[in-house]
């Protein structure tokens, strides 16, 4: 009897170890895939407040609406609603996944017309914030796999620590580090390092909520550790998988 109990206990122990090993055995790519799968929305609509803080702590606020639609052509529309000096400004991005060609359009109320803008407009910061344009699309769409390759640095039952290596030539970071929560498969913190391998930005993702089966951080804080500036994005009125008319993502709509 004693022998059987011992064997059973041993077997259980080995089984537990193997399960534990399996849970900690994911590759970096598999973790990024899990992150992507945790957000499977075909469409997304968000209202956002963007608070910009300079090094002295002064703040400027921007309110914007963001709409996104997946498909053969990935479509994004960002419209500023306040303050008054930027209200009405809109960006439209149309990325053809088959050719990787991206067309970007800007509508400025003062011009009253739509202007095609060059891809270099994605360089630098997005409307004075601490995010680059690519940061914004990656964080809001959770499509890290499109832009990064990941290696696992550390893991536990609660989280993974990944090293992110940029695969998109438009990304100017040398590398990043990402802490991923395994319960909801979402990043909770990301650090980006510049070409001199100095810490450049820290991104904190907080206030997680599951909306329409998609996990999203409702608050994202981006700190530029070298300049002392900060951007806080607060997402409100988030909707996934709603019906977004293709006509919304056209220059015709922008000009109206």
């Amino acid at each position, binding site marked *: 009897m004693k022998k059987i109990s011992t064997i059973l206990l041993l077997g259980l122990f080995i089984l537990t170890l193997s399960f534990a090993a399996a849970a900690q055995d994911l590759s970096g790519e598999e973790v990024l895939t899990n992150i992507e799968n945790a957000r499977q929305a075909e469409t997304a609509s968000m209202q956002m407040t963007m608070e910009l803080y*300079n090094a002295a702590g002064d703040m400027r606020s921007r309110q914007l609406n963001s709409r996104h639609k997946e498909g053969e052509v990935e479509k994004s529309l960002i419209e500023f609603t306040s303050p008054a000096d930027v209200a009405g400004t809109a960006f439209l991005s149309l990325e053809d996944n088959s050719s990787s060609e991206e067309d970007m359009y800007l509508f400025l109320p003062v*011009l009253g017309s739509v202007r095609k803008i060059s891809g270099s407009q994605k360089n630098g910061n997005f409307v004075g914030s601490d995010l680059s344009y690519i940061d914004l699309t990656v964080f809001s769409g959770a499509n890290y796999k499109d832009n990064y390759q990941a290696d696992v640095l550390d893991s536990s039952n609660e989280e993974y620590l990944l090293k992110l290596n940029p695969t998109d030539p438009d990304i100017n970071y040398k590398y990043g580090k990402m802490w991923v929560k395994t319960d909801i498969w979402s990043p909770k913190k990301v650090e980006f390092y510049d070409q001199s391998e100095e810490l450049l930005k820290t991104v904190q993702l907080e206030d997680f909520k599951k909306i329409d089966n998609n996990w999203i951080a409702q608050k994202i804080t981006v700190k530029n550790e070298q300049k002392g500036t900060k951007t806080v994005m607060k997402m409100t009125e988030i909707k996934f998988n709603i019906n977004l008319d293709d006509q919304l993502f056209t220059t015709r709509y922008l000009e109206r």
Partner: protein
Amino acid sequence: MKKYLSLIILITLVTLCAFSTAAAELPFSLSGDFKTKYIYDLENENNLDQTELNLEIEKDFSYTGGFYLNLGLESYSEYLMNNKNRETELSIKEGYFDYYTENIDWRAGKQIFNWGSSYNIKPSNYFNPIDIGAINPLENREGINALQAKYYLNNVQHFTAVVGLREDINDFQQALKFTKRRWHGFDFSLSLFRGNELEKYNQNEYPKVTKAGFDITGDIGQKNIGIFSEVVYNDFKSPIFNDGLETVVGFDYKFENNLYLLGQYYYQKRLFENIDDSQIISLHAEKPFWQFHSWEANLLYDLNSELIVLRPKIIYSLTEAMEIEAGAVLKANDDQRSQLARANEELIYLGINSYF
């Protein structure tokens, strides 16, 4: 007193609208800006000022149509025969109705067309004269009464037809344009115009002209450098004027440090035999600093007269939607025979802009 009456009425109206609780329930949106500038004319050593209140009233009926009205109240000082006068003008800068059908967007009323992908100097801008009274005339255009129809073949191709009537000329201006977007990463358009030149020539004449234009904009290279070009052929009715090409070629690029650079070359075949072809190089740079503020600089270089016009500007954000603007217009190798020189008087200015 009469001059100030309309100003007082308008300010009272705006104040009531802005602070009234009923403002939140207006059946249209109300916005605008208030700009005031102190100007020192370096050429004539005069002190001038400009104050402008723009009210924008807009109503959008979603997919059916809407209306838009931009009222401008301007008060400015000017010198006439060494006497300083004050003028106050109330005007409709733009005012039009929109009506949308399944394939056609209609617009009727006073409007500004922003044709052409170039920077400020735009050969394809057939309809709207520059506002010579503005500090930067090339950035400010005057509206014309017109009927515009845009017929959409699909989301990337459309025809635009315009029939307009300029206030300074009792003659119709007409144009037809075809636009194709997202063609191998480029947008291009072909246009045809019949009407009058925007500028006066011999004996105060706006010459009759037919123009055929081509415009293209897109990116090139791995770095996504923006390129743009406009080519217009001018066919004048009067044999006094030389027919010929007017063209712009340019590039733009935004760096990782947020510096934005633009450069373009403008050429126009001489209108008369006794003058040179026009050749102007434009350079524009702008960059944010200290997070909320920005500077920009514009340089125009006339290759024939060697005139240089430099326009530096700083915009300093005070609070949300309120900023200080300081700038200057400086010239080197000034030549008053040059149209560019006459459109750019040397001055420095300081102003406050407020948006609501």
